[in-house]
């Protein structure tokens, strides 16, 4: 406190502190008010003090997600009490707890996926007793959680199969796992996409570098092939199919789009010194890409920059941000290799920031289904409209999270992993099945979950068996 202040100001400032703490009696309150009317300096001090304690309240006090947290804790406490009650053999709730335990154990025993060391390339049929519908061994896992893998296109499923020289692209029937075709050449990278007529991937070029190839989805024959090297250096970036018969990818600091039917160049945009660019996302009219330094929206038909938003970040980040768009919002996850992941939600038309929030851990994967579901240590759900936390669920691992029909699907743990279905509204577990290993790719379509396991197999699981 300033020693040069007049005595009554010194006294007033003590009273201001007592007032903020709720300790003033009526006489003191009167004295303070009278002084504040005359003294502008003390008025400013009173306002600064009030702002400071309000900031303490806002920072440490109730948050919008507290009610949801309380409800979640109450449910978990009850579940914990039930489980403990069953263990200690106390009379109340024993039946319910035993029934719950039996369900969990039953799922664990009956649905355990066996780990096979066989190396045959054929499909292996399963059933409810094995926990999977079919399994194809020798399938490569995916090296990034930023792209959907395996790729589902109608009834056809596309994946990479390991061979002695590298890997090939295979197409199988999604219902039976039967092989439809396999490329006669090796492919490269992790990128795979499909429209209704073609499958797109990269293959090593004869003179070095990579070529983008379009294959007939019906028979795997090459429809067209083009060198990646067009203007500047482009590597085998993740391919995104756009509206209007086009596809695009990012590589180094470029976004490149070509015609999907013939492979002819449409546009190419160079974002100089942007740093490593994300896998692109699109909403029909625009393509969104981000780096540590900002987010760009490009017109999907011309590549024209519609808007850009700078971030106070670094272009030297070891992993680029991840960008997701569901037509209503663009969500960007940054800080993916640091202790503090960060989410930003933008308006897809204007780029205006709607909300941003710290998620306390690196973001491994994210999915949008109205709200935002993030795997960052735990799985956390945030309101799509406000970014307020909705719930969190403790699940180890970093495999992808998939939303489908009011449920979230993901795997938990490594080695002795489980496929887990969560209620999308509350984060509570609906069921879980033991797996041979965790997965690097997970897609759910037509009630089937397709899972590229780290044990080297592609599994198809009927999501209804334990639902």
């Amino acid at each position, binding site marked *: 406190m300033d020693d040069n202040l007049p005595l009554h100001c010194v006294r007033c400032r003590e009273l201001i502190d007592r007032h903020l703490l*709720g300790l003033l009696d009526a006489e003191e309150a009167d004295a303070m008010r009278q002084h504040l009317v005359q003294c502008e300096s003390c008025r400013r001090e009173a306002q*600064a003090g009030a702002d400071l304690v309000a900031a303490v309240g806002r920072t440490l006090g109730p948050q919008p997600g507290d009610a949801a947290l309380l409800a979640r804790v109450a449910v978990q406490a009850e579940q914990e009490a039930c489980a403990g009650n069953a263990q200690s053999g106390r009379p109340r709730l024993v039946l319910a707890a035993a029934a719950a335990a039996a369900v969990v154990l039953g799922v664990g025993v009956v649905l355990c996926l066996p780990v096979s060391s066989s190396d045959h390339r054929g499909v292996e049929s399963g059933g409810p007793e094995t926990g999977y519908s079919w399994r194809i061994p020798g399938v490569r896992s995916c090296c990034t959680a930023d792209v959907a893998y395996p790729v589902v296109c109608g009834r056809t499923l596309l994946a990479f199969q390991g061979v002695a020289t590298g890997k090939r692209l295979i197409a199988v029937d999604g219902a039976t796992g039967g092989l439809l075709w396999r490329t006669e050449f090796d492919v490269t990278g992790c990128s795979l996409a499909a429209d209704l007529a073609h499958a797109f991937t990269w293959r090593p070029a004869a003179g070095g570098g990579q070529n983008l190839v379009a294959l007939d989805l019906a028979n795997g024959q090459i429809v067209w092939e083009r060198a990646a090297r067009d203007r500047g250096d482009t590597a085998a970036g993740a391919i995104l199919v756009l509206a209007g018969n086009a596809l695009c990818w990012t590589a180094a600091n470029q976004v490149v789009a070509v015609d999907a039917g013939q492979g002819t160049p449409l546009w190419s945009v160079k974002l100089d010194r942007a740093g490593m660019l994300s896998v692109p996302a699109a909403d029909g009219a625009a393509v969104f890409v981000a780096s540590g330094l900002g987010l760009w929206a490009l017109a999907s038909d011309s590549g024209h920059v519609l808007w850009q938003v700078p971030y106070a970040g670094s272009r030297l980040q070891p992993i680029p941000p991840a960008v997701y768009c569901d037509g209503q919002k663009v969500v960007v996850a940054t800080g993916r290799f640091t202790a503090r992941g960060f989410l930003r939600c933008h308006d897809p038309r204007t780029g205006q920031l709607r909300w941003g929030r710290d998620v306390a851990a690196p973001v491994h994967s994210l999915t949008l289904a109205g709200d935002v579901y993030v795997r960052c240590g*735990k799985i956390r759900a945030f309101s799509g409209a406000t970014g307020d936390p909705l719930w969190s669920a403790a699940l180890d691992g970093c495999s992808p999270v998939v939303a489908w029909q009011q449920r979230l699907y993901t795997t938990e743990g490594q080695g002795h992993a489980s496929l887990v279905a969560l209620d999308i509204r509350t984060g509570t577990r609906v069921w879980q099945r033991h797996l041979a290993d965790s997965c690097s790719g997970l897609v759910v379509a037509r009630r089937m979950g397709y899972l590229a396991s780290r044990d080297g197999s592609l599994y198809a699981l009927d999501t209804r068996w334990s639902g």
Partner: protein
Amino acid sequence: MQFVDTNDEQLMVRFRMSFDQEAIRTLLLRYHRSALALARCWLGNTAVAEDAVQEAFIRLVRERDRYDASRPFAPWFWRILRNTVLDTARGVQRYEQRLRVLALEQDTAPALATEQEELHDLLAILDAEDREILALRFAAGLPFAEIAARLGCSEEAAKKKGQRALARLRAVRQRRVALPAPVVVLPSDAPVPD
């Protein structure tokens, strides 16, 4: 509410003896706001603090048989919360150390949430007791009688401590304000696409 006149100790005993769900819900309602305020001020991070509070309440349920019914409930619960927060902080520290080894460059602090970060920085300069008093009074809204019980002192002493804590916070903030404000400059080579 069913247990308006029932004290914390009776609720805990009731829960332990008969697994009364309403009893544990009442305890959660009474303590969650203070627990969150304290965890946020100790850990300096909202998301991590929420996890710690959730874990503390689960530990309370798991360790219900260790509760000594002849002793007050509040100190027992605060001890569980404190231990959980310490475990959480140690886990976060280990995690960050591993990431620092792996990361080439730390991500720059996001431009948002500046008020929260600034306040956590200011609170971090204060003593632990000052931080707790400010959190319990201004964030949890506890009366001084309850803060005194938490601190293990008289109500009058708690009020004096509260005044001193607030004066210190204001002094710390004034010193901080007197420093030149950091200027955020976007890199001059920020990309401007054609």
